[in-house]
């Protein structure tokens, strides 16, 4: 046909003109129209070399700005290897390996779109490679695509039926999809495999629990814990089973042991995958997890590992110093903090903690200097204000102390430690009852679970000489609430006072007698004071004014070095 067309179009008529000249371009147009429509190219920009390989898709180039330098370099190197293999027209398996390695790196750093495409390319090039198929299955599972995960696990399993760790993961995915019988079969298949027993028993225990076969669940989960005592997550599931059969006390015991570690699965392939995640940040994240578990020793180790890779990370150095201090290495902590502030002179937290260490060592001039440096950088630093307030309070400069405490609370109204000494400083500096009232109301509002503030508020309302503030009935109401919550001597004392200022001396005396009986042996000093007050009530008199103002708790607080190292908030710990 085409030969006829071209021969026909090539003919010239008797005049030498080619009357059929239009046929060739027409034919070409028809061929184009008959060709399949071009698909839109949806792929993200990628190295041009990818496009030379038909069947492969371009791998998106993700942003990696927030990763550490070492990790970025590894990703770039892995991607360069892919490009090199493409350009050298490497054999399919070799090219697949470069895609697979790059995909694994993307996966561990949660760059899922890029990981997915790498694995797809690797499998397209080397479909019988177990590792890429398995990683792709694991990736699907970890990104929540369970039906796809099951499909891929089955494909991978066909390639390597003897790899039993895969069976546990397949079972987990089947369980997730409510394929309980299939999941059970899979778990049972590996229940005797070394390194997989606990995970299999855990899965079987979960199935039994779902099916309300509680005794079986208890048996499986208990055995799983015996095999893997570090799998602290099992405690919670076991607690559920125990609770369901009314073994509530044992359930509570298990709940108290609950942790975050799932049963281990001995899986060299996935271990190898996870080991690809390195870099300083990985260690810092582990350190923070350890801190959340209150395991400062482990945190210290992880920070050290991370700093070995990023030795000039001033923020991480401060966090490391905190763990050193909390594990008994105060001197080393000081050295590290000094290095941190040398690297980053505006490191406010580092300077503050150095102040704490100096104060702990008795060098108040040095500590004051550090706190002042903090305030120059951050005028609203609650911690620096608080510790300066304490310093001045001990120096009996109560006005200066009150100023700093006020600023600490202005910066952070939840800085609970500051309220009591602030009140003390206010009282000793002759502040008005109005100021005291406002402070106590704030404290009660922010910390309703701390009765001390309501107790002091009740005292103030009962004893204030300011008629605008004196409110004996409100004082009584508050005191009654306090005693209802906790019938302890300080609350009883306040209640007695409230009765007395309301003219109910008999009741005041009765209540105070009870308080006195409770402290008579254990707190002789307090007992003496209460005894004198009781005598006044029995004569239907109020205690002397100065006694009323002898509020027992308003003294400069004892120095606390541990608190800031343990609890002072750091928005960015590394």
């Amino acid at each position, binding site marked *: 046909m085409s030969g006829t067309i071209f021969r*026909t179009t090539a003919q010239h008529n008797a005049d030498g003109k080619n009357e059929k000249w239009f046929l060739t371009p027409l034919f070409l147009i*028809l061929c184009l129209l008959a060709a399949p429509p071009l698909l839109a190219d949806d792929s993200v920009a990628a190295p041009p070399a990818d496009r030379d390989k038909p069947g492969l898709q371009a791998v998106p180039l993700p942003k990696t700005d927030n990763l550490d330098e070492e990790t970025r370099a590894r990703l770039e190197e892995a991607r360069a290897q892919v490009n090199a293999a493409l350009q050298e027209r490497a054999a399919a398996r070799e090219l697949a390996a470069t895609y697979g390695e790059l995909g694994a790196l993307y996966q561990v750093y949660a760059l899922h779109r890029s990981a997915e495409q790498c694995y797809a390319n690797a499998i397209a090039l080397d479909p019988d490679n177990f590792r890429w198929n398995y990683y792709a299955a694991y990736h699907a599972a970890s990104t929540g695509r369970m039906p796809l995960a099951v499909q891929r696990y089955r494909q991978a399993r066909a390639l390597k039926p003897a790899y039993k760790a895969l069976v546990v993961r397949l079972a987990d995915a089947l369980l997730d999809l*409510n394929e309980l019988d299939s999941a059970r079969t899979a778990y049972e298949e590996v229940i005797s495999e070394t390194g997989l027993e606990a995970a299999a028993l855990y899965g079987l225990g979960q199935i039994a629990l779902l099916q309300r076969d509680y005794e079986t669940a208890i048996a499986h989960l208990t055995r799983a814990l015996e095999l893997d005592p570090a799998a602290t997550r099992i405690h919670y599931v076991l607690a559920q089973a125990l*609770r369901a059969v009314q073994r509530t006390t044992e359930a509570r015991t298990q709940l108290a042991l609950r942790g975050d570690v799932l049963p281990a699965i001995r899986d060299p392939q996935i271990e190898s995958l996870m080991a690809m995640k390195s870099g300083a940040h990985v260690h810092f994240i582990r350190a923070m997890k350890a801190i959340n578990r209150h395991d400062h020793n482990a945190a210290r180790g992880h920070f050290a590992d991370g700093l070995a890779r990023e030795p000039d990370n001033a923020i991480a150095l401060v966090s490391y110093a905190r763990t050193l201090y909390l594990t008994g290495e105060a001197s080393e902590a000081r050295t590290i903090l000094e290095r941190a502030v040398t690297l980053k002179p505006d490191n406010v937290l580092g300077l503050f903690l150095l102040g704490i260490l100096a104060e702990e060592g008795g060098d108040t001039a040095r500590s004051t200097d550090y706190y002042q440096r903090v305030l120059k950088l951050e005028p609203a630093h609650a911690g620096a204000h608080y510790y300066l307030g304490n310093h001045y309070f001990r120096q009996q400069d109560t006005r200066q102390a009150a100023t700093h405490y006020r600023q600490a609370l202005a910066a952070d109204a939840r800085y609970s430690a500051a309220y009591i000494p602030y009140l003390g400083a206010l009282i000793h500096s002759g502040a008005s009852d109005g100021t005291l009232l406002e402070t106590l109301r704030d404290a009660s509002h922010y910390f*309703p*679970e701390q009765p001390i503030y309501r107790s002091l508020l009740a005292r103030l309302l009962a004893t204030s000489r300011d008629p605008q503030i004196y409110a004996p009935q409100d004082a009584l109401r508050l005191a009654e609430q306090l005693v209802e919550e906790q019938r302890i001597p300080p609350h009883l004392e306040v209640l007695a006072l409230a009765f007395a200022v309301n003219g109910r001396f008999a009741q005041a005396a009765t209540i105070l007698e009870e308080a006195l009986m409770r402290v008579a042996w254990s707190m002789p000093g307090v007992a003496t004071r209460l005894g004198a007050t009781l005598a006044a009530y029995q004569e239907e008199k109020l205690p002397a004014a100065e006694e009323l103002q002898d509020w027992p708790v308003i003294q400069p607080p004892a120095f606390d070095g541990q608190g800031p190292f343990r609890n002072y908030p750091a928005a960015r710990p590394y």
Partner: protein
Amino acid sequence: MKQDNSSIQPYRGEAVIRTVFYRSLGVILVIALGGAGLWYLSREATKPEAIEEAVVSGPVIETATPLHTPPAVAFTDITDEAGIDFVHVNGSRGEKLMPEAMGSGAAFLDYDNDADQDLLLVNATGLSEQPQQPAPTLALYRNDGHGRFSNVTEESGLAITTYGMGVAVGDYDADGWTDVYITALGENILLRNNAGQFVDVTAAAQVAGLASDWSTAATFIDYDNDQDLDLFVGNYVLWSRKIDLEIDFQLTGLGRAIGAPNHFTGTNNRLYRNEGNGLFSDVSHTAGIVVNDPVSGLPEGKALAVAPVDYDGDGWIDLFVANDTVRNFLFHNLGNGRFEEIGALEGIAFDRNGKATGAMGIDTAYFRNSDDLGIGIGNFANEMNSLFVTADGQAPFADEAILEGFGPASRLALTFGLFFFDYDLDGRLDLFQANGHLESEINVVQPSQHYAQPAQLFWNCGDDCRNRFLHVEETGALATPLVGRAAAYADIDNDGDLDIVITQVGRRARLFRNDQQLGNHWLRVAFADGPGAGVIGARVELTAGGITQRRHVMPTRSYLSQVELPVTFGLGRNAQVDRLSVTWPDGRVQEIPVKAVDRVITVSRGH
């Protein structure tokens, strides 16, 4: 000269061939052009609009018999025709601050006592020091009884600008008018309803909370059974712009991202006891709802939703609190003014693996029409939603989301609003969830995630089905991907079935009318006394065809939302009701005669 015919014949043959060829060419050309045109036109027609579609994988559905197939129901987006022109303002200026992603709530309420459901939509505002212009406000829409709304925000006194989060409705002062409490990033607001005019009485009532609080869920309940409505307020995390920027949360591949709650300190919830005469007392500590970490002393909770229900039937209302990334709470009411937190012991604190989830929305229901209570919780992306269920009517709860088919289908979606309701009126409570991600660019790094996601509807197939909750594929306009947040239901057009509102963060709220035409019977029970202490917390039981259904009278459900006060029973093909009873919060049981179905019965206490 005679021509040589042998040389002419080939030319004739070729002429025939040429003729045939030209004709064939013409036909081919016509066909090809026609085909190309058809292809081009059909490609244009199916080209997706410029909205992202979510790829949310469905459940593994076994081959269904006709009886086990969700009925065809269409929800129609009537936002425009209903007159709902509300657009949520989240104050985003590109800093990716956490509050920008959380959205705000919605409430159906009868604010003007005309027996239909009006709609209140909560709004936020700017987060920087410069005020947003024009100032966004809350929005109140009055229903004409037929599902058409008019904006009555100004005239009702609700043109209030605040960084609003959630809403609670209830008649706290027992004057017969529905009052409203708005939670916020900052101080909350109590609005007393004076015959259709709202007045800010927050200061007098002493229920503002702290300026540093980030309040979310709220509910009016009578926790101490003293016949007045008290107020529970859930608080989220300790947040400020400074803290958020310092933390500088990053997602690899995206850069700065919306902060994760596990980087922020938790806060404690508040319980306000109604003292009468418009005054409340903060009894949070004495009531035992303060939960602090025993080691650090810091608050543990990060509340986003609350579901009040008397789960143990002792006559005292309990509180289920959904916390984001930390354990959920169950505050068990001890009946003496105090609560005990026992979430872990009762099995609702964690998922089946003992892990805390990113819990956002919550609802409770007797979805099996048995004594077993179910607690549905909407969780984060790549976390199954939870469905905690009692066994034989007793705690502890077990997470049966997998067994009921709901879990696997909900895993990929990021769920906020969630509630039980009987959308097809067959007598079994179905499940609805509003979905939407936090990150507008999430699809760049996670191909299985999208910012806008379709809502999901799960049909309750009943006891005979292997998977009780079947994902409904055809839902009409409900399948449109949205950046969904709060969700609430009401019968806005008084046709017996339940319609839905979904709020979006930084976008327009959508109203969906239920256009089911399945012919099932129904009965709605309304309450003449309104949402006061004598009504909220009541339990309504209806028996028809041998099946007893139960409903709690409780507007607080879902995420930051309030549903309508009346309760709806689907009756399927049953044209009569065997028994209808109301157990009021004070324990009295009232039998209600039902003479006919497919109507609203209004009941009053003591009548």
